[in-house]
Structure formats: C-alpha cells, structure tokens
C-alpha cells in the first residue's frame, strides 16, 4: 500500500515526534509514504484570517503538485493541513472559475483529482484485521480518552468524516488492540492550540477543561491525531497544573504511538520519549 505524504510544517518542525511515530508505524505495517516534492505551507490560520484567496491558493499549489506526480491519495497527518487541502479541493472541484483562477495563480493545472486522507483513514484503509495480524503486545493497560479536537471532523459538510459531535473511529481501532477507551465529555472541544503563543491564558483554561475531564472519567492517556493538540496539551500541561493547582499527570500520545506500541515498537522508536508528560509503558 502506498500513499502520497504531505508532512506540513509542524511535522518537520516542533512536532517531528509525530512524523517519527507515523513513519515507524507505517514501516512496520508495510505502508509506503512518498513525500510530496517541494510542498509548501498550507497557510493555516494566518492565511484564512488575512487573505481568503491565499487560503485557497497555498493548498491549491500542493494539490497541483500532487496531481502532477500522479498521487491518488495524499496523507496529511495534521488536521489543520488536511482540512485546508480538502476545503481548497472542494472549492476547485465545485467551480470551473475557481479552477481556472487557481491554476493561473499557482502556475500549475489543478483540478482537485487527488483525494486527501487523515491518519485515521489510513489505518482504516490498511484494515483492522491486517493491523491485528501484526500485533505483538496488547494495549490492555491503557484507558485512552480519544481526543478529536476541532478539525478532524469539523466542518462536517467539508470533511465528511466520522460523526462531528460523537466521533468513535479512534475508539474502534484502539479497542481492537486491547485498550479500554473511556467515555468522556470533551472529545471535540477545542484546546485553543492555534493561539498557544498569542493567548496562552486562554489556552491554559481550555486545556485544563479537557485534561481534567479525561482524568475524571478514568483515562490514563489522551490519544490524539493532531500535532497541535498534542503539543498544546502536553507542553502546556505544566502551566495548567500551576494555574489550577491540581495534579494531572496525563500523558498525551498520537494514535500512531498507540498502534506502534501494539506492534511492538519501543517508545524511543516512536519518539514518545520526547514528549513532556511521561507515558508509563
């Protein structure tokens, strides 16, 4: 199985532990990732806050590169990137005028032929049976709170993935690998990661709400498929503990960390040792 791969800035920067985890996991599962040649940033919050045209054009350039290389399915493990790519793709597919305008702006023909997939969808494509056939360790010691955050399921009309209020795709995977996912309240609440530098006060309040609720419902790890959620809940947790004077000690892992552990990979191979709050494995 082969997927095109759009890492996005986070996975080549401060969340390179996510890239390490995804690559280690897919190596083990025999999935080949071919990185998009000369990809550029999707523009993220800055582009859609300041110039709407740019917010379509930056992802459109990447879509055009993907099409040119004949890529049918492009994995963007960061939900911010995948949402921006999907949004641009739909705008291009829906309107001939947008297609022409974007092709002209990005200097490459773009039709929106390439399908964009998130990390969970790649695991679904591999299939639970195929993953289970390679499992060496049960995850039965973990009670994960699966945290989807904002952009894995929202906006639903654009993403058409899982249920936007009660998603369960990560639970399905982890349950099959032996873990006991908990029911909790804030699966899709925002952690404010986009404002982690500009407005840390807000972010600490939002992160507290999420981590404390997961703990209250008996979780011993929060599992996410978003580099910004992971970084924010993990790195800012010390600030949360300080502000709210309560012990949380909640490790924050990527979905690929959990699958990787089940496949017998070590925390070092997955980059879990580079997180802030230690996971007891």
């Amino acid at each position: 199985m082969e997927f095109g791969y759009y890492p996005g800035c986070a996975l080549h920067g401060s969340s390179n532990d996510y890239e390490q985890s995804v690559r280690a996991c897919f190596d083990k599962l025999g999935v080949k990732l071919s990185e998009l040649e000369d990809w550029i940033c999707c523009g993220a919050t800055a582009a859609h806050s300041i110039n709407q045209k740019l917010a379509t054009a930056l992802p459109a350039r990447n879509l055009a590169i993907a099409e040119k290389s004949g890529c049918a399915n492009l994995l963007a493990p960061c939900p911010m990137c995948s949402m921006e790519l999907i949004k641009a793709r739909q705008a291009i597919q829906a309107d001939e005028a947008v297609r022409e305008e974007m092709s002209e702006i990005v200097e490459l023909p773009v039709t929106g032929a390439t399908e964009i997939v998130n990390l969970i969808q790649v695991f679904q494509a591999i299939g639970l049976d195929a993953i289970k056939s390679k499992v060496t360790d049960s995850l039965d010691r973990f009670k994960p709170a699966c945290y989807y955050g904002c952009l894995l399921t929202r906006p639903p009309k654009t993403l058409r993935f899982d249920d936007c209020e009660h998603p369960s795709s990560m639970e399905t995977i982890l349950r099959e690998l032996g873990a006991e996912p908990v029911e909790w309240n804030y699966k899709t609440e925002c952690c404010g990661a986009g404002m982690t530098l500009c407005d840390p006060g807000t972010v600490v309040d939002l992160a507290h709400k999420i981590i404390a609720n997961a703990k209250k419902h008996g979780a011993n790890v929060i599992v996410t498929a978003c580099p910004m959620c992971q970084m924010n809940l993990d790195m800012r947790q010390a600030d949360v503990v300080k502000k709210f004077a309560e012990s949380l000690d909640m490790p924050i892992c990527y979905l690929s960390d959990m699958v990787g552990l089940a496949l017998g990979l070590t925390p070092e191979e997955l980059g879990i040792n580079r997180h802030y709050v230690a996971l007891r494995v």
Partner: protein
Amino acid sequence: MSESPKRLIADVERLAHTQVNDCYQCGKCTAGCPRAGVMDAGPTRLIRLVQTGDVLEAAACESVWQCVSCLTCTTRCPKSVNIAGVVDALRQISVERNITARKYSRTVLFQKEFLRNIRRNGRTNELELVAAWKLVAFFDDWSPFKALADARLGIPMLTRHKLHFKPGSPVKDKAVVRRIFDRCAAKRKSETEQEQD
C-alpha cells in the same frame, strides 16, 4: 469615511461564501462557542452587526481575534451560515483597514509574521517566526514581560529536538511562493476596486 453598508455586507458575504440574512439569531453558535464567556460580542451578535451593515464595528470587536477558529458555530448553525467564515472575513477587513482591536494587536502581528515567514521560506521556520514576532510585538507594546514570556519553553524544546536552528528540507522554488502571494494580494485589490466603481 462614509461607505455603503450594502457594499460592506456584500464584501463579507463574498469572502465568507455565505448569506448573513439566513441567520435568525437563535444563539446556538454562541451557546457552543468555547470563547463566548470572554467575548465582547459573541458570534450571534457579530452576525447581527453584519446584517445591519455595521461591518466595520463588527470588524473592530475584540471577539474577532478571541475566536480560536474551532468551527463549532459553523458546524451547529441550523441555517448553515458559515459563521467562522464571517469571522475570518471580519479579520481580513479589520487588517486591511487597520481597525483591529488594540488589545489583540499581538495576535494580529503573529498572523502577519506567519505569512511573511511563509512568503520568504515557503514553509514555516518556527524559530525565525517566533523571534521576528516577539521583536515586532515588542516595538508595538514595549512590554518586556510579554516579549520574554514563553522563553523558558526554548530549552526543553531544544533538548527534545523539537526546535531547530536549521530547519529541515528547504523549499527549492521559493520564487513561485512569492508570486502566489503577490497574485492573491493583487486579486483582492482589483476586486475591491471593481466594487467601488
């Protein structure tokens, strides 16, 4: 500066791809907004201001930059109004007209530096971005406290190999990125000029 409210509403609707008059002010967006509690004008009120043509007043609200772009409002709107899109449109208008709420100028400067960083590098160079933003923000509010906030995050990030003095693989064709930026800016300019004719 007297500007036709009609024209301003049309601008918001074109940028956000939505019809603001579809909103019947039920308040569901504000009920689900994680930031509503601290906002000067929640999403329901922002939409109302746009409906009545008070677009510039809406764009100058603090809430426009307090929004964390989580899209809960757009997701839950029973009338399918793209509320988060309207907030983005208001952000863009507030930046273009330099009427952003003073209290959130650091946030605005961050978004501007982010784009400048991509324009220059094609991909974000995080260390360069944070340094540049801290510097421009310091010359804006002269707060050494804010300038040094989060500096303590640097060392733990370095020891975890999460921060890099030399970023990973650079973009080869950086010139095309600059051309894309320039074309988008030019398109926006010609669109707004056409409207004024």
